C-alpha cells in the first residue's frame, strides 16, 4: 500500500487536517473562546523544539556515540528550571513592550536601535538556514526511502539530481505555500497566531505517538523487551563499547558539557522557541505547568531512542543503512506498512512544525527589523503618506518566507550532504547561542550598551562563520579543502577547526569556546568603556526593573512633546487597518471611562506611548519609533533628564516608604498623647482632691484655735489654770498648722522637682546615731527603749544628708507615736546587701492592717478611722519620705501584721565609683 500516490495523498490530507485545526482555532479565537488558552496546549506547542532532528537524527547520533544525543534534551530541562526566574521576566517585558520577535526584543532593549535589530535578524536568518535545510533533508530523504518500499535503498547524492526533479525543492515550495497560508493570512496587532499554535500542539502529539509506536514495536515486537535488546547489543563485540560510551571519546565530558550549555541557550533563543514561548504566550501562569510538562515530553520522546539505535545496528549489516533512517527503515524491513506510514507522518509533523514556526518568526523579524526600518527611512518611497500599509507588510512577510525556505534549500544543496542530521542542527544551535549574552545581560544588567551588544554579536557571529559555517562549506567542496587542512594562506595558527592551535576538542566545543569568548568579551568591554544615550538608559531601566516601580509606570513618563489625535489615528490605521485602529482607540478610551469617537481624547504622553506600543506590536519597536517620530513633535530628552526620571521613580519609592513610616510614627504618637491626656486628667482630679483635703486639714486646727480664742475674749471670768490650758492648746494647734503648711510647701517643692538637693557623701551610721540622739529625750519621757544594731563600718551613700535625716526622724517619731508608753521597744538595724544599704525601723506597736498598708504612703492618708480616731500628724510625712527615698534611687516599704508591730524599711544605693569605707565614727 505504500505506493507513491498513497504517500503523497496522505501527506496532503495530513497538511489539510492541520489547516482545518488552525482554521477552527482562529475562528474560536475570533469568537473570544480560545482553545489555546490552556497550559497543556502551551506545553505541547513548546515541543516544537523536537524536530526531524529529534525524530530521525537522535537515533543516528545514538548509533554512533551512545548517549551523545541526550544533552540536547537535558540542557533544556536544566534551563527550564531557571525559567521561573528568567522567562517570567522576559514574558513580562515582552507583554509590556509588545515585543514581536527576538530581534525586536534585543533592539528594544538597547535603545530601540534599528541597526541592532537588523544585525540580529541577519544572524538569525543565516544561523537558522542549516537547521531548515536539515528538515528539508529529512522530509525528502524519508519520502524517497518510503517510495522504494519494499526495498530499502539509501537516497543517492543530491547534487546528481537537477533542481526541478529534487524532492527537497518541491518540499520547500509546498512548505512555503503552507506557511504563508498559515501565518500571514491577516495581520494581528499582537502577533498572535492562535491557529498556528493549535496546529503545532496537535503535531507535537502526532510525532510523540508515532515515535512511541515505532519504539515499542522495535523493543517488544522485533526483540523481547529492553533486557533482550541491550543484552544482544552487549554481546556484540562492536557494540559492547557503547555500553560505557563516555570512555575513550576525545573530550567526552567536555563535549557533553558544551552540548548541554548549547542546548540551554537554544531552548531560549531559537527564533521559533522565542515565538511559541514568549510571543504566543497568552497567560504567564501557563509557565507553571509547562515547567514540568515540557521536560516530561522530552523524556518520553527519548526513551526509545537507544533501543531503536541498537535495534537498527543489530538488524542491518554494517554500513548499508544510514542510522538517521532507522526509525523508518526498521518497520519497513519488517513489512509493517501502516507503521512505516505513521512514522513518515510523524517525521513530517516534526519537520513541518519546525519549518512553519521558524519561518513565521524569521519573516516577522525580516519584515519588522530589517525591511521596514529601511523602507520607512527612504524618503523617496513616501511610505509615510500611504494610507494603508497592511498589504505591504503581509507582502514582505510572504516574500521573506519563500526566501528563507529557498535559502534553506540552497544550503541543503551546498552543504547538507557532508553531515549527519544532528551535526547540521548543532551549527544552528551555536549561531543562536550568540544571542544569550546580550539578552541575559540585557535583562539583568543595566550597563549593557547598544554598541556593546553590536560588538558582542558581531564578534561571536564572525567566529561562528569562521569556525563552523565556512568549514561546512569547505567539506562540501565549495571552498578548497586546504582551507581547513592548512589554514587560510597556509597559516596553521588560523586553521578554522584548530584556531590558535587549540586542539583535542570536537568542532562544536571548539567553536563555542572561541565564539563565546569573543562575544562576551566584546559585549562587556565595549559596554563598560562606552557611554549610553538617553534612549538606552531609559530602555535599560524599563527592562531590568520590569517588576519594580519603573516597569509599572511604563514608558510614557519618558516622553515629552505634542501630538494630535487624528495624526495618531492615521498612523495606526495605516498599519493595522481602520478596524484595528478603531478597536485600539476604543480600548484606550474604554479604560478611561470614555467612549470614542464621541468624547475627545487628549494626545498626552500616555496616549502617544499607547499608540507606539500598538504599532510596535505590528511592525516592531524600532520601526514604530520611526513612525511615531514622524507624526508627533517630540522634544528629545537629554541623558540627564532620563536619569532624573529614572531616579525620580526610585525616589518615589523611597518617599512612599518614608510616608508609611511617618504615618506609623504618627499613630504611635497619637496613642502616647491619649495616654498622656488620661494621666493629666487623673492628675487634675488628684489636685482638686488635694486642695480640698488640705483645706479640710487646715480648717481643723483653725477651728479649735478660733473657738478657744473666742472663749478667752468673751469670758473674762475664766480662771488662770483654765486660761493657761486654753492658751497651750492654741499654741499647739498653731504649731500643728505651721508644720502642716511647711510640709505642704515641702511636698509641692519635691513633687514639682524644685527642691534643692545637695549631693554629698553620707555615712548612714552617723545619720542613725544623730537621729537617735535627737529623739532620745522624747523616748525617755515616754519610757520607750531604742536599740540600734549597726555594723562596724559601711560604705557611704550619696545624697542629701538633711533629707535622709528627715526620713529617719519621720520613721522614728512614727514608731514612738504608736508605741505604748512605758513598754515600747524600737529596733533600728543597718545592713548592706547587693550594693545597697538597708535600714529597718521596727516597733512593737499595734501594727497596721493590710488595707492600711496599701494607703499609708498616699497623701493625707493615715491608718485607722480618720474621723473618730485620728492620730496626730498631718498625713503627709510618709508620702514625703517615699518621695525622698525614690529621689535617691531607693525604696521604702512596710511589713506588718495587726498586733505584731510594724517594720518600716528603706534601701539606698551605695555610692558607686569612689566607694570609700569611712572609718568608724565615735
Amino acid at each position: 500500500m505504500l505506493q507513491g500516490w498513497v504517500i503523497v495523498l496522505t501527506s496532503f490530507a495530513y497538511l489539510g487536517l492541520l489547516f482545518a485545526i488552525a482554521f477552527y482555532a482562529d475562528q474560536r479565537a475570533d469568537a473570544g473562546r480560545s482553545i489555546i488558552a490552556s497550559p497543556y496546549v502551551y506545553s505541547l506547542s513548546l515541543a516544537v523544539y523536537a524536530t526531524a532532528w529529534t525524530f530521525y537524527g537522535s537515533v543516528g547520533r545514538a548509533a554512533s556515540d551512545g548517549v551523545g544525543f541526550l544533552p540536547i534534551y537535558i540542557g533544556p530541562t536544566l534551563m527550564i528550571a531557571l525559567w521561573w526566574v528568567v522567562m517570567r521576566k522576559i514574558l513580562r517585558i515582552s507583554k509590556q513592550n509588545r515585543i514581536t520577535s527576538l530581534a525586536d526584543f534585543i533592539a528594544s532593549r538597547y535603545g530601540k536601535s534599528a541597526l541592532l535589530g537588523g544585525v540580529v535578524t541577519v544572524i538569525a536568518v543565516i544561523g537558522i538556514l542549516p537547521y531548515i535545510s536539515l528538515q528539508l533533508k529529512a522530509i525528502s530523504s524519508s519520502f524517497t526511502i518510503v517510495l522504494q518500499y519494499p526495498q530499502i535503498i539509501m537516497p543517492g547524492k543530491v547534487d546528481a539530481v537537477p533542481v526541478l526533479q529534487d524532492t527537497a525543492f518541491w518540499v520547500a515550495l509546498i512548505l512555503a505555500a503552507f506557511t504563508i497560508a498559515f501565518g500571514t493570512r491577516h495581520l494581528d496587532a499582537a502577533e498572535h497566531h492562535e491557529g498556528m499554535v493549535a496546529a503545532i500542539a496537535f503535531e507535537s502529539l502526532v510525532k510523540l505517538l508515532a515515535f512511541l509506536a515505532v519504539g515499542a514495536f522495535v523493543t517488544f515486537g522485533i526483540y523481547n523487551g529492553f533486557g533482550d535488546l541491550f543484552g544482544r547489543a552487549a554481546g556484540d563485540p562492536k557494540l559492547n563499547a557503547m555500553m560505557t560510551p563516555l570512555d575513550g571519546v576525545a573530550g567526552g565530558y567536555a563535549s557533553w558539557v558544551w552540548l548541554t550549555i548549547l542546548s540551554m541557550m537554544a531552548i531560549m533563543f531559537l527564533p521559533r522557541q522565542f515565538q511559541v514561548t514568549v510571543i504566543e504566550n497568552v497567560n504567564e501562569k501557563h509557565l507553571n505547568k509547562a515547567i514540568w510538562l515540557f521536560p516530561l515530553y522530552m523524556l518520553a520522546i527519548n526513551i526509545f531512542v537507544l533501543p531503536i539505535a541498537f535495534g537498527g545496528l543489530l538488524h542491518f549489516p554494517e554500513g548499508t543503512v544510514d542510522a538517521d533512517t532507522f526509525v523508518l527503515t526498521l518497520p519497513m524491513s519488517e513489512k509493517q506498512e501502516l507503521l512505516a506510514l505513521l512514522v513518515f507522518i510523524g517525521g513530517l509533523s516534526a519537520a513541518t512544525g519546525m519549518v512553519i514556526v521558524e519561518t513565521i518568526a524569521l519573516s516577522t523579524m525580516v519584515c519588522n527589523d530589517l525591511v521596514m526600518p529601511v523602507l520607512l527611512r527612504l524618503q523617496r518611497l513616501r511610505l509615510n503618506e500611504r494610507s494603508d500599509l497592511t498589504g505591504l507588510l503581509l507582502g514582505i512577510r510572504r516574500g521573506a518566507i519563500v526566501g528563507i525556505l529557498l535559502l534553506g534549500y540552497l544550503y541543503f544543496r551546498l552543504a547538507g550532504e557532508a553531515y549527519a542530521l544532528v551535526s547540521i542542527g548543532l551549527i544552528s544551535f551555536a549561531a543562536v547561542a550568540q544571542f544569550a549574552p546580550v539578552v541575559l545581560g540585557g535583562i539583568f544588567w543595566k550597563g549593557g550598551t547598544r554598541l556593546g551588544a553590536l560588538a558582542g554579536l558581531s564578534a561571536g557571529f564572525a567566529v561562528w562563520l569562521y569556525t563552523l559555517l565556512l568549514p561546512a562549506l569547505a567539506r562540501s567542496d565549495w571552498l578548497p579543502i586546504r582551507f581547513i587542512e592548512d589554514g587560510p594562506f597556509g597559516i596553521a595558527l588560523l586553521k578554522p577547526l584548530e584556531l590558535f592551535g587549540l586542539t583535542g576538542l570536537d568542532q562544536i566545543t571548539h567553536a563555542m569556546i572561541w565564539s563565546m569568548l569573543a562575544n562576551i568579551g566584546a559585549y562587556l568591554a565595549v559596554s563598560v568603556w562606552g557611554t549610553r544615550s538617553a534612549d538606552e538608559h531609559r530602555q535599560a531601566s524599563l527592562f531590568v526593573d520590569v517588576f519594580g516601580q519603573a516597569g509599572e509606570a511604563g514608558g510614557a513618563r519618558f516622553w515629552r512633546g505634542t501630538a494630535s489625535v487624528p495624526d495618531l489615528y492615521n498612523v495606526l490605521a495605516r498599519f493595522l487597518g481602520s478596524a484595528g485602529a478603531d478597536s485600539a482607540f476604543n480600548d484606550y478610551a474604554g479604560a478611561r471611562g470614555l467612549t470614542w469617537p464621541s468624547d475627545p481624547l487628549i494626545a498626552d504622553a500616555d496616549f502617544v506611548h499607547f499608540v507606539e506600543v500598538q504599532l510596535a506590536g505590528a511592525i516592531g519597536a524600532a520601526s514604530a519609533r520611526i513612525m511615531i517620530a514622524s507624526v508627533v513633535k517630540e522634544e528629545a530628552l537629554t541623558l540627564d533628564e532620563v536619569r532624573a526620571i529614572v531616579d525620580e521613580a526610585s525616589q518615589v519609592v523611597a518617599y512612599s516608604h518614608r510616608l508609611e513610616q511617618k504615618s506609623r510614627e504618627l499613630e504611635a504618637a497619637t496613642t502616647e498623647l491619649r495616654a498622656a491626656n488620661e494621666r493629666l486628667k487623673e492628675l487634675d482630679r488628684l489636685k482638686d482632691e488635694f486642695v480640698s483635703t488640705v483645706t479640710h486639714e487646715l480648717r481643723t486646727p483653725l477651728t479649735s484655735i478660733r473657738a478657744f480664742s473666742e472663749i478667752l475674749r468673751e469670758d473674762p471670768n475664766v480662771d488662770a489654770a483654765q486660761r493657761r490650758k486654753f492658751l497651750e492648746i492654741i499654741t499647739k494647734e498653731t504649731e500643728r498648722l505651721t508644720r502642716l503648711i511647711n510640709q505642704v510647701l515641702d511636698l509641692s517643692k519635691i513633687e514639682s522637682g524644685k527642691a534643692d538637693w545637695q549631693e554629698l557623701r553620707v555615712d548612714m551610721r552617723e545619720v542613725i546615731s544623730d537621729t537617735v540622739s535627737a529623739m532620745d529625750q522624747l523616748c525617755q519621757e515616754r519610757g520607750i527603749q531604742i536599740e540600734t544594731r549597726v555594723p562596724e563600718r559601711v560604705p557611704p551613700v550619696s545624697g542629701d544628708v538633711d533629707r535622709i535625716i528627715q526620713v529617719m526622724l519621720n520613721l522614728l517619731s512614727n514608731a514612738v507615736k504608736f508605741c505604748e508608753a512605758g513598754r515600747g521597744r524600737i529596733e533600728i538595724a543597718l545592713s548592706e546587701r547587693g550594693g545597697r544599704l538597708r535600714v529597718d525601723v521596727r516597733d512593737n506597736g499595734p501594727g497596721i492592717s493590710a488595707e492600711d498598708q496599701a494607703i499609708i504612703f498616699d497623701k493625707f492618708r493615715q491608718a485607722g478611722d480618720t474621723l473618730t480616731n485620728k492620730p496626730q500628724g498631718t498625713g503627709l510625712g510618709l508620702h514625703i519620705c517615699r518621695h525622698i527615698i525614690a529621689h535617691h534611687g531607693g525604696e521604702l516599704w512596710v511589713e506588718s501584721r495587726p498586733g505584731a508591730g510594724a517594720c518600716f524599711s528603706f534601701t539606698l544605693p551605695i555610692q558607686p565609683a569612689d566607694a570609700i569605707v569611712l572609718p568608724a565614727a565615735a
Partner: protein
Amino acid sequence: MQDPESRAQRMIALCMLGCVLFNFPVLALFNVSESVFGVPVLYAYIFIAWALLIALMAWVAEKRG
C-alpha cells in the same frame, strides 16, 4: 506558604542539582559496563535521574503559593 522569591530559589537549587547529576564526576561513576534489569547502568541512571528531576520541578512549580 511559597512566595515567588522562595520558589525562584528552589528552582535555582534544582537547576544546580541537575548540573551536578548530569556532569563529571557523577556521570563517570555510572559509566561502567554492568547492567540493571538488562539495561546498561549509565542509560538507566540518566533516565531515572532525569525523571526524578522533573518530578521535583513539578512539585515546586505546582505547589500552591
